[in-house]
């Protein structure tokens, strides 16, 4: 199982703050693989991930798209941060 979270603009444009996905059985599963899978959910999802800059964290640590996701991880997608 992977818990996937969305924040800010991304959460609003997807109309979704959280998904729980089955962890794929075979091979190493990266952030890029997950993003491709999410884009397959429809045009809304495709454009959200392709047309805007999206950052990603695994278990609350910022990571790169090449990073590998393990079963049980919390993966968060969000737009560039604007705090401070």
């Amino acid at each position, binding site marked *: 199982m992977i818990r996937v979270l969305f924040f*800010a603009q991304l959460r609003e444009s997807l109309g979704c703050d959280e998904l729980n996905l089955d962890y794929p059985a075979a091979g190493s599963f990266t952030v890029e693989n997950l993003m491709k899978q999410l884009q397959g959910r429809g045009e809304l999802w495709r454009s959200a991930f392709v047309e805007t800059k999206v950052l990603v964290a695994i278990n*609350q640590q910022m990571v790169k798209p090449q990073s590998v996701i393990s079963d049980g991880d919390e993966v968060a997608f969000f737009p560039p941060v604007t*705090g*401070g």
Partner: protein
Amino acid sequence: MQCVRVQQEDFNVADEYHALLDAAPTAGGVVQFIGCVRPDYSEDPVQALELEHYPAMTQNALESLVATACARWPLLAARVIHRVGKISVGEQIVWVAVAAAHRDEAFQGARFLIDKLKTTAPFWKKEFRQSGSVAWVNAKATDDQAASGWD
């Protein structure tokens, strides 16, 4: 001593400054940065911001920044307070304070913390304008440049 807080309530700079000094009685220099909701004088002025964050990550992200700063400079104390939720124009958003033996470390540590906070801590601002329009704030390229200057 390090201390990071994420909270809805406003904070009192005087209390925080004195707590910092108590934690760093040998400080020769203290630098404090306070970020406020800046009024704009557009035709449709901003009245408030709403700050969303990623609660499970925020505290860790800020603590990790403070730890990095303390490893990079000989700091006696480094603290960060960041508010979330609705914040009106003129109100305080963030407080970063660093105490050190000498001013150079204190200035560098404080500047590092706010520069990195702005590009790595999971906060997002939404602007509420007088007309009722609501829009997310875009990240600034200048913030990315300031942050990568420390790498």
